[in-house]
């Protein structure tokens, strides 16, 4: 091929690269910045991975009376199943509190530690955070790398690393745990770059995550609810609980455990026979989750944030059936309590003694009708006065 032709074709290739670069750059202008939001809309109850990973969006939507609540799949419970979820209780009544629910299924204490480190940089409203934990996240073997990888957020990790209040020892712990969970070394190192190459890695990964979040937040903005900001009244917890009990009695009619009818008939009942003693080897001891919880609470301490740890129980009769004894579960709950007790500033809302209370859960692991009311009562008291409800 003649040199002239080669030159022409090389120039064409470079032009293609330039066009692609322009398209990539253009996408930053087409998708609005993460913090873009409507002040009249409350996005705190939207269940979304993009929302939960966007530091800018969450911080832009935290108000003076907001309480940041970290959790996982319990936030996905729909109002048609449990009308007592926070989106209904706090979202449609002006009780003078907004809860910013952050987290999705498989977000556990390591994810929470990174999220808090990123979000607490610069402080939180009243410097408080609540976190919901349950035995499901303390199972032997810990969270599998695939699930962790799907929910890993580079933006949260970068924000966590950038928070100067978080001591080096906690950052080193998180980096080590990320490595164990299968996050690649390039990603881990770029969070705290030590040379220009790692700096560039961080910029590229950060920009790509920024675009992902910009894209995902478009859906979140469409799901917000109208902000209530009138004259706040105190909730009548007794009345709310009575109403919850009545609702539960209409939605759980097919089983003695108090689980929701559709869940029981489609998920639980067909599987019960095959699950008899299926989990009798479970110990809830062979997991890094307790250390991760300790790390989360240490990040709280370092950032001057007071945490409320809400222990969500499991469905006692079901776990008896699958062979995880009450003693085993009790030991795990005690282990959680012991970790919390090493952080004097932390408060505890411990519902582990409700495992056998009908209607407290709507399935095997998630708050149900009365469960959500009691959990919300704990969140409300914590936000109002520091957490007398179930406090240590």
């Amino acid at each position, binding site marked *: 091929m003649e040199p002239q*032709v080669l030159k*022409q*074709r090389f*120039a*064409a*290739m470079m*032009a*293609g*690269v330039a*066009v*692609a670069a322009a*398209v*990539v750059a253009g996408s930053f202008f087409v998708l609005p910045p993460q913090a873009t939001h409507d002040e009249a809309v409350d996005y705190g109850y939207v*269940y*979304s*991975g*993009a929302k939960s990973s966007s530091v800018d969006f969450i911080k832009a939507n935290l108000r003076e009376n907001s309480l940041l609540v970290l959790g*996982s*799949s319990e936030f*996905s419970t729909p109002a048609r199943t449990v009308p007592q979820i926070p989106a209904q209780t706090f979202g449609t009544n002006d009780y003078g509190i907004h809860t910013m629910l952050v987290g*999705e*299924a*498989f977000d556990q204490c390591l994810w929470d530690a990174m999220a808090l480190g990123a979000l607490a940089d610069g402080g939180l409203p009243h410097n408080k955070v609540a976190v919901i934990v349950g035995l*499901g996240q303390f*199972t032997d073997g810990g969270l599998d790398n695939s699930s962790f990888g*799907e*929910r890993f957020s580079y933006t949260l990790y970068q924000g966590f690393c950038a928070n100067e209040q978080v001591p080096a020892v906690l950052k080193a712990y998180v980096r080590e745990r990320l490595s164990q969970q299968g996050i690649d070394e390039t990603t881990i190192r770029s969070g705290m770059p030590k040379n220009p190459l790692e700096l560039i890695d961080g910029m590229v990964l950060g920009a*790509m995550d920024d*675009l*992902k979040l910009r*894209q*995902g937040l478009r*859906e979140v903005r469409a799901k917000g609810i109208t902000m209530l900001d009138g004259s706040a009244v105190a909730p009548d917890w007794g009345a709310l609980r009575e109403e919850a009990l009545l609702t539960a009695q209409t939605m759980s009619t097919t089983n003695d455990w108090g689980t929701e009818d559709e869940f029981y008939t489609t*998920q639980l009942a067909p*599987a019960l026979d095959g699950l008899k003693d299926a989990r009798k080897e479970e110990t809830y001891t062979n997991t890094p989750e307790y250390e991760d919880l300790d790390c989360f609470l240490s990040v709280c301490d370092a950032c001057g944030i007071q945490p409320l740890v809400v222990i969500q129980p*499991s469905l006692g009769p079901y776990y008896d059936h699958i062979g995880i004894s009450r003693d085993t579960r009790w030991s795990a709950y005690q282990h959680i309590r012991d970790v919390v007790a090493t952080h004097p500033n932390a408060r505890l809302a411990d519902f582990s003694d409700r495992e056998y209370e009908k209607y407290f859960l709507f*399935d*095997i*692991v*998630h708050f149900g009708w009365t469960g959500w009311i009691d959990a919300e009562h704990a969140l409300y008291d914590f936000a109002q006065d520091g957490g007398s409800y179930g406090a240590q």
Partner: protein
Amino acid sequence: MARNKKKTLRDRFDEWLSAHPKAACAIIGSSVALTLVGIFLFVTFSGFGSSAEFIYNQF
């Protein structure tokens, strides 16, 4: 005696590109751009947007 080798599709395409230099440049440029944009879109946006779903049998 060697027989005339039959032209392959690639030979014909190369001949066509040589005969149409402007079209060749357009094809090369747009191919590069589309490939890079495609990789970018796949890496950045694939598998994202839907919320993580809880799986009951995990517990």
